[in-house]
């Protein structure tokens, strides 16, 4: 079981935490036929089956350059076909929420952010909360008002499968988004300075996350780190050291055995810790 840092428990309890859900969280969902959403890597792997020749794309994937690989795939398949396979992967199968989604919702974080296009978490959260949770996309013009407001929000930082035209997925889209939606990135940066980010089911390769964290470390010389949970052995220890030092990230490792059961159990324990801490806050009113 993960030993949760006191600051994490405290920040979530005081709702000064952004929970960031990566594709690893969506992976826990299945649909009625037992299908699971693919990770970025798996999705691109399956997308190139009909492309020939494909050795150049396979090489990009091997080098972890998913952005360029994705851009090439999109160009070769054509926009329409690409949109079709994206929808086919993330919308059509109707994935159901998994236990981990329920536990994350129980943490009652005010802000949950996710680069996932699928709607698994937001659908679950809104069905539980009778639609009272606001879902904001990176291209919405009023994200700021929601963050300043008091409602619970879900930030879709790369868009939603409901509007496939506006997804941030390929290299060109990433590049364009940074200028086009610069105000949104400013907001994310502001959040990273004032809130603790807890990354669940994310890798360290997402260019947005990288940029965000490197900036906040070097610009503002922050000593208070964000937290990322990673399965053991997904990175070499020396790499972890570099990442911790350059991205201001505290990486906590857990065993990925048994379908990441340790992650689910640890988040379940975190829910209890947060509830107890909030009970305490209710008494000392020191929030």
């Amino acid at each position, binding site marked *: 079981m993960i030993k949760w840092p*006191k600051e994490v428990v405290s920040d979530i309890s005081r709702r000064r935490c952004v929970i960031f859900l990566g594709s690893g969280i969506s992976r826990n969902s299945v649909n009625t036929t037992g299908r699971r959403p693919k990770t970025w890597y798996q999705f691109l792997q399956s997308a190139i089956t009909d492309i020939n020749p494909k050795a150049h794309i396979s090489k990009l994937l091997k080098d972890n350059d998913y952005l360029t690989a994705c851009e090439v795939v999109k160009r070769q398949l054509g926009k329409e076909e690409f949109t079709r396979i994206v929808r086919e992967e993330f919308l059509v199968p109707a994935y159901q929420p998994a236990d981990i989604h329920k536990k994350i919702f129980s943490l009652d974080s005010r802000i949950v952010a996710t680069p996932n296009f699928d709607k698994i978490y937001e659908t679950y959260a809104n069905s*539980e*909360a*009778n639609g*009272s949770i606001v879902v904001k996309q990176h291209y919405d013009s009023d994200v700021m008002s929601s963050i300043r407001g008091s409602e*619970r929000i879900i930030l879709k930082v790369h868009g939603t499968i409901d509007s496939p035209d506006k997804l941030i997925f390929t290299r060109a889209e990433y590049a364009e988004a940074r200028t086009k939606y610069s105000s949104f990135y400013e907001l994310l940066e502001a959040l990273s300075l004032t809130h603790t980010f807890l990354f669940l089911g994310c890798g360290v390769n997402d260019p947005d996350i990288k940029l965000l964290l490197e900036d906040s470390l070097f610009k503002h010389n922050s000593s208070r780190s964000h937290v990322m949970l990673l399965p053991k052995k997904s990175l070499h220890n020396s790499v972890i050291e570099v990442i911790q030092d350059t991205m201001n990230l505290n990486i906590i490792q857990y065993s990925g055995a048994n379908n990441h059961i340790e992650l689910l159990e640890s988040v379940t324990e975190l829910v209890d*810790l947060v509830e107890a801490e909030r*009970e305490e806050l209710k008494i000392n009113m020191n929030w």
Partner: protein
Amino acid sequence: MKSIVFFNNKGGVGKTTLLCNMAAYLSIKKSKKVLIIDADPQCNSTTYILSEEKLESIYGKSKRDSIESFLSPVRKAKGYLEKRINPVKSERFKVDIIPGDPRLSLSEDLLATDWKSATSGDPRGLQTTLVFEHLKLQYEEYDYIFFDVGPSLGAINRSVLIACDYFVIPMAVDVFSLMALENINLSLTKWRKGIEDGLKKYEEEENEPYEIYDKEFQWSLKFSGYVLQQYKAKTVRGEKVHVKAYEKISKEIPAAIEREIHSITKDHLTLDNLFLGEIENLHSLVPMSQTTNAPIFSLKSKDGVVGAHFQKVQYSEGIYSSIAKKLLSNIGDSDD
């Protein structure tokens, strides 16, 4: 009609919350007609389920319809109240209530003095003691009458228990709740013997059994289960406290229920059946439900529910549903 009293002489065990929400659950989800009689001079269930405007309209008058309406004629030696009063409706709990009254405490003395003569078969003493039996018979059209009583083993509660068909014990997992069980045992044994002696002596003297409205009265109180109020492990300055004591005491509870309550009520229910359920800490929902005068399981966003507390609202409905199911089966009613 079946009457059930929720009773524990240890206070602060979530008695009123449990009673009112069970009443609302049976009414809203099971279409039962439920009447709450607030026989606690502190009037907690009345303030819980009625809005402030309604309370103002009831208590603003000098002559008000409340539980006191039934007691004051008895106190003045005028016999039982002739015309029943109209219960008040609670909008959101969907149950009716005979409102409580702080003046009910004034009857404690009378009920205490007349008890002695009740146990020796004196008709006047029996009449006073059985005032709640008479009250109950006025509202036969209800499926269930729930009595809320204060946390005492005094004369008012004795009279209520004598009049009821069943009792439920809401309790907390603490050492005082365990001690309270022993007191309940001693009192129930004494009261039962007292009233049965009185009825026997009355019958010997008058050559007929004691009747209210041509119905022979008999002690019929049966135990129909207990509910635990659960505390989560608390962290105080980073240290978990109470956990050890909680586990130790919660293990002792079934044996104490068996020894102190089950053994004297001698019903056919197993100890397992008698455990109706455990109510988890529902955080902000209890105060929210009190300020909006609404059942916990039907709180909405307009009442102030936000975020993950909706999960708790649903969770609470599950708890009440399972407690209701067990309770109904324990009193021989079906769940549909």
